[in-house]
């Protein structure tokens, strides 16, 4: 029973961060029809920046003889997400915009180039040693489930995931900007004809998508270290999520993240050898039966 509870919590914890990444990927595809292969590396970028910032500030405070409170550390955590959003806002107008009139292969390729660049930029800037913001994890302690201990921070991540899902839903379906975003996603030229600044909408959508990826990285980094190559692994999982849920669909990203995390958690417990293969097969099966995913529209 304890194990079941712990595994369910683990699954939801994984789903929370996976949802953040996948929602960003899905949002970017939904609005701009770009499959962003560099998205996983945006996630890694967010993780690195957050871990580095928290670590650096804690060390700085310690060198002055002050202990940095948990509240301030948590407040520092989203720095990575903002950094990634800024990066996205720079990349879209410079590298992606010139390619919208060309066949979609080129956009895919340029994001693959970005992936390679970001992978090494992370290595160049942060070095090869894994970075973590473990001080947050330690400061939050853990609580008991039966006879087992469970880190309290994981619940925070689940909370952030929920808040992000709700926030994103409210943002897209209840605000004026959300209407603009959806209008642009449905018909770019009509939106432009109605006087919307499509270029600006694209930058904003791309930056928000990047922000989500960065946030996914930021919330993960107190629990798991930021390592090189994490982006490439994460991208494939995020792909599976959006393929199952439907490219461009927010609900799909949520449901997909839950499914993928549940299968992974169960897989690690019961069928560790084929855990990943099963995920890809599920994705392939969904694509075969419903190419637009469970929640996607054509």
């Amino acid at each position, binding site marked *: 029973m304890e194990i079941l509870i712990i595994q369910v919590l683990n699954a939801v914890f994984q789903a929370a961060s996976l949802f953040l990444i996948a929602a960003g990927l899905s949002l970017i595809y939904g609005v701009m029809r770009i499959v962003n292969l560099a998205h996983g590396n945006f996630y890694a970028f967010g993780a690195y920046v957050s871990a580095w910032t928290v670590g650096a500030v804690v060390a700085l405070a310690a060198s002055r003889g002050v202990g940095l409170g948990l509240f301030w550390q948590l407040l520092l955590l989203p720095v990575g997400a903002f950094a990634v959003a800024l990066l996205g806002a720079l990349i879209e107008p410079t590298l992606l915009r010139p390619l919208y009139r060309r066949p979609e292969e080129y956009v895919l390729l340029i994001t693959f180039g970005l992936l390679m*660049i970001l992978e090494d930029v992370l290595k160049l800037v942060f070095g090869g040693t894994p970075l973590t913001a473990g001080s947050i994890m330690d400061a939050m302690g853990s609580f008991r489930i039966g006879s087992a201990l469970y880190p309290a921070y994981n619940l925070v991540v689940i909370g952030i995931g929920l808040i992000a899902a709700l926030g994103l839903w409210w943002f897209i379906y209840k605000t004026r900007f959300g209407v603009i975003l959806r209008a642009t996603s449905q018909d770019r030229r009509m939106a432009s004809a109605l006087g919307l600044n499509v270029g600006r909408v694209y930058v904003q959508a791309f930056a928000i998508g990047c922000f989500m990826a960065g946030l996914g990285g930021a919330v993960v980094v107190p629990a798991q270290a930021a390592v090189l190559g994490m982006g490439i692994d994460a991208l494939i999982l995020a792909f599976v999520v959006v393929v199952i849920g439907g490219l461009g669909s927010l609900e799909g990203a949520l449901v997909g993240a839950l499914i993928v995390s549940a299968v992974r958690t169960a897989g690690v417990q019961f069928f560790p050898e084929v*855990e990943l293969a099963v995920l890809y097969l599920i994705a392939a099966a969904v694509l075969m039966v419903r190419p637009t995913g469970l929640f996607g529209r054509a």
Partner: protein
Amino acid sequence: MPVKRSEPSLPLLLAVSAIVVAALAILPRFIGIYQTELLIYSMAFAIAALGFNLLLGYTGLLSFGHSAYFGAGAYAVAFIAQRLHVQSMELLILGALLSTVVIAALFGYVCVRHTRIFFGILTLALSQVLWSLAYKFFWVTGGTDGMRVPRNAITLLGGLLDFRGAGAYQRFIYSYYYYVLALFVIAVAIMWVIVHSPFGKALQAIRDNEVRAGFVGIRVRRYRWIAFVISGLFAGLAGALWVPLNGLTTPDVLYWPFSGEIVFMTVLGGFRTFFGPIIGAVAFNYLKVYAVASSQYWQLMLGCVLVLLVLVLPSGILGTFTQPPPWVRRVASGKGAFVGASLAFLVALVALFWVWTDRFGTAGDLSNVIGTVAVIAAILAWFLLMALVYHRGGMIGHAWLGVLALLLPPIGAVVGFGGPALLVLPVLGFLIAIGLGAVLPSRVPTEQGA
């Protein structure tokens, strides 16, 4: 937009091919064993890229999962060699092709139901199934350790050549070079026949307009499926040839970034041309080996090359000559723009070359990065310059001007004294070409909007 294809006539093509193959055949006598080995790798990748391009360039399907078939070929060879103790390379290749056919037929049957981005993602997802199996079933596949295929465990030409005892490495490289070269020539010939056959024309019709192709009676999905299987077969052959050379196959060749590299090679060479993928594979292989050798940040450099390529030269190395991007056309047809841009590239070339000779050899990884970037940028500047002169020459009806631009730099490099002096003759040559291009009257009216 219909793509104009200016392909040379068959006799000319055969003559040029014969010269190239003859040059490749005598090349190992002049270059070292290491360069010979690199050429074998290049030819193996070229076969994979050629197969990939049947889908991308000729059928209009972007597969992001061709690592699956390359890896399937590689792992099949490893399995048969290790478990069944088969030594003959011919049998190993046969086994690899059979396994690749099965996998490509199965995956292809699923994938060709979709096009565009869904096709890409589906191929990606399926290739990752194979990757995760190779990665996780370590007691069968060795996991990340991979499977070894030592060269002393294989024989060529039905047991005629084996590689045991002293000097095995040398003997292996030099015999394997000709072995791969022969298969490479056969593969290129087969692919040439395929794309120029009615079947190949049907694929191009499907690429250009799926609906119309269906109306004239082409069974679109079945044709795509067959193209998919053929394409996978070429990748499988490439993988099979690659294993003994590498001595080892790891899940890395099944992982999706390797699929990206195959796409990269093809686009680098130019996917709208037949020979583009071959040139792209060779160029990519050298680029990667060079970048990896000079710095741990080689991905950064390759990534920059890819980004630049997509933004500046979307039609690739060969495509820049056959289908120049609009800006090359525009610049080459205006006299002032042509002279200005050419001189700018020339100055950049010299400056970058100077940076390279100055920087290279100094210690430190980052300085190596700068040196390597300078080299790559210099190659790009040289290439752009050549493209401009070539097109200017072509446009004013003086094809020899283009030939001059093509020939002078290598001649200069051979005759030059080494170091910065290496540049003097090519620069002079380019200056002559630019000057002539600017002075001679334009005979062909400016072409717009191509």
